[in-house]
């Protein structure tokens, strides 16, 4: 049967994920080491898992409120206030979602009219562009580069704004580059955003994984920005809880009134045990100053230094990432494209990385390597990559 008359051509035209091919090749190589993952190598801390088990044993198997458990929303409100100086009312400004990914979708669908433009700094996470298209909008990529630490500049932002521009997605700390954005840079962006009356969808899922001198700053904490920001975060990266699928979206109550409708009618609520686990993560964190997070962050930080140092020693350019758990070295000097480099490396040395182009065309010339992997494996992988690069 020919379905092409049935499906929505806009959605059918969205390209398949660029990493699928690598996934398929790796599957056939049992000895391969993968630096292509996008999640922590820690298992969720035991006390968090245990809280979910207890809740199951207690028979907590029902729906929660559409908004998520109030006790969890209270914890989120406390956490955001104390960690990032963000004030949200747990009754009407915090929505528990199925990962921050759902939050991206909700925000875009609630905001966009057909043809509205959304600015997407790239390289960045693979879901933004398709998300904009699914919501009927038009994604407008803004190129960032290593020379400017992969940070969006106010000039480039301003140059990309047109009459249909409605919102900016702000993806920092960034996947895949590991770039972070500091207060000063945010303030400059704010001036442009306010002047052009834009909204910001700020994806801060990696906010806990910042390694620089400056603590993570949320754009929503800047003057005049709270009311213009849809704030996204979640538990996946900070608490090693990817598989639980729990995130949250925060926005001013008026905006939330619209956003929550989509969630209400399509999702009902995030999984109950995921919410229980998330609440335990924050409750314990409140008591022990987020010791779990700090232990993991420190371990990533050690491996981060090891990784970017190793790439520099190989003679490749490597911007020092100060966030997330990725390095994004430049491989232009090898003469290979990102995709060629990754495919050859995988076939010849059995190390999987992700080509930079999976995160936007401007990722060409780079590869993404995740350092959330056991130290002994990282050592072997780095050795193999060095052998590969030197033999070219």
């Amino acid at each position, binding site marked *: 049967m020919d379905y092409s008359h049935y499906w929505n051509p806009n959605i059918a035209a969205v390209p398949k994920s660029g990493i699928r091919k690598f996934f398929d090749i*790796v599957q056939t190589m049992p000895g391969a080491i*993968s630096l292509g*993952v996008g*999640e922590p*190598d820690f298992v969720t801390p035991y006390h968090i898992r245990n809280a979910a088990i207890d809740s199951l044993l207690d028979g907590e198997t029902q729906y929660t409120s559409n908004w998520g458990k109030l006790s969890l929303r209270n914890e989120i409100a406390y956490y955001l206030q104390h960690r990032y100086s963000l004030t949200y009312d747990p009754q009407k400004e915090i929505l528990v979602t199925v990962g921050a990914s759902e939050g991206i979708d909700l925000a875009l669908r609630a905001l966009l009219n057909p043809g509205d433009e959304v600015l997407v700094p790239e390289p960045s996470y693979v*879901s933004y562009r398709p998300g904009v298209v699914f919501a009927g909008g038009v994604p407008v990529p803004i190129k960032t580069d290593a020379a400017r630490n992969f940070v969006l500049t106010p000039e480039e932002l301003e140059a990309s704004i047109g009459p249909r521009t409605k919102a900016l997605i702000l993806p920092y700390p960034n996947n895949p580059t590991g770039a972070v954005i500091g207060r000063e840079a945010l303030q400059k962006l704010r001036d442009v955003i306010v002047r052009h009356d834009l909204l910001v969808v700020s994806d801060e899922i990696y906010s806990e994984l910042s390694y620089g001198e400056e603590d993570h700053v949320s754009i929503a904490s800047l003057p005049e920005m709270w009311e213009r920001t849809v704030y996204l975060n979640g538990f996946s990266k900070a608490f090693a809880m990817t598989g639980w699928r729990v995130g949250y979206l925060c926005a001013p109550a008026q905006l939330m009134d619209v956003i929550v409708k989509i969630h209400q009618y399509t999702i009902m609520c995030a999984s109950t045990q995921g919410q229980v686990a998330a609440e335990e993560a924050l409750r314990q964190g409140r008591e022990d100053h987020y010791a779990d997070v700090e232990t993991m962050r420190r371990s990533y930080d050690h491996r981060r*230094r090891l990784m970017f140092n190793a790439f520099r020693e190989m003679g490749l350019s490597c911007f020092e990432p100060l966030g997330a758990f990725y390095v994004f070295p430049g491989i232009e000097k090898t003469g290979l494209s990102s995709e060629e480099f990754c495919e050859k490396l995988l076939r010849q040395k059995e190390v999987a990385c992700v080509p930079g182009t999976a995160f936007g065309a401007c990722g060409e010339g780079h590869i993404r390597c995740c350092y959330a992997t*056991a130290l002994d494996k990282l050592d072997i992988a780095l050795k193999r990559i060095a052998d590969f690069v030197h033999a070219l």
Partner: protein
Amino acid sequence: MQNLQIELLQLLQQDCRMPLEKLAVMLGQPLETIAAMIEDMEKRGIILRYSPVINWDKTDRERVEAMIEVRVTPQRDEGFDAIAKRIYRFDEVKSVYLMSGAYDLLLLVEAHSLKELAYFVSTKLSVLETVTGTATHFVLKRYKSDGVIFEGDAQDKRLAVNP
């Protein structure tokens, strides 16, 4: 500085064979700083020894282990220290702890055979004049020691490539 010291110790505890160069890179410090810190900690007795965690059950070596609770009469001026010293000098005794609760000292004792261990308890330990009682518990299986899990999978369950 104190944090750095703890981070360094934690890395060494995970792998004390880690080369200095690598420790220095991972901690973001000059090599000389790390070398000096280690030397200093060795001198001050913070680092006592570099030894591997061994699962002896996977070797052919015959070996029995027991935890022994010991009740003793503390001595004037010396408290428990003198008797602890008399006990820890035995080669069979691998660890000695002073405990709160129903008994005073807890020993981890290792011997080649059950017979040898029984011999140690009956002829060396119990006969010490300040020892008023012992209770010996044989170790049947070691699941976790020094933070290392001895059995069970440490497999990476993640998908190989994801965004």
